[in-house]
């Protein structure tokens, strides 16, 4: 499945883009999306173990299934406040 993923903060700087695209082989889970990003974008790999994935603006766990058409965002550790 073709997935587009929004990027923020250090992840966006490393990718030099505010989004990336990956093809994820089934079964498409959040963990599989992160694995596909690590393979396709090796310079992001060091940051990925501490990132979370948000699906339609909610955090999901690595085993969560990703249906087609949802909005994906790669969320590095947050530092607001």
């Amino acid at each position, binding site marked *: 499945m073709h997935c587009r993923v929004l990027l923020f903060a250090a992840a966006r700087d490393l990718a030099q883009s505010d989004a990336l695209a990956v093809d994820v082989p089934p079964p498409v889970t959040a963990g599989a999306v992160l694995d596909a990003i690590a393979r396709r974008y090796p310079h992001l790999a060091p940051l990925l173990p501490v990132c979370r994935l948000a699906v339609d603006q909610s955090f999901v766990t690595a085993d969560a299934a990703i249906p087609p058409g949802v909005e994906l965002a790669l*969320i590095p550790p947050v530092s607001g406040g």
Partner: protein
Amino acid sequence: MTQIPAETTARPAPRIRVELVDHEISLQPLRDFIVDADTGAHAWFEGVTRRMTGSLQTILLSYEAFVPMATRQLNALAEEAAARFSLTAIAITHRLGEVPVGEASIVIGCSAAHRVGPLAALPWLMDRIKADVVVWKREHFADGQTQWIHPR
């Protein structure tokens, strides 16, 4: 026995105001929002850009957010805090973009009939905001270096 009508016993819904702004946060509109003749306690937290982190001197912080998600998260946290701490009103404003030393990046104000709820709500909210709300800060140091802050 006289039945008390439900509408007179139910607590009115808390008033909630959440904003992400790209300018200095002014306190008066927030104060106006949480003021209520039936509240006896107003509690406030301001998070402010600090000059020194260890031996490094900060010139300013810049903040970015995934705005729609951060707005949803802050509204959900405000709702939960209002219920958990019996708040009458709560206002959360987070500033984005550049925040110079001494200026506020976040202001939370909340009110209730008595002080216990508002005083407890502030640390509860700040802990959750710092753990989960999708906002990131970048330090701009005096030596020209910049660094995204991604606590692990």
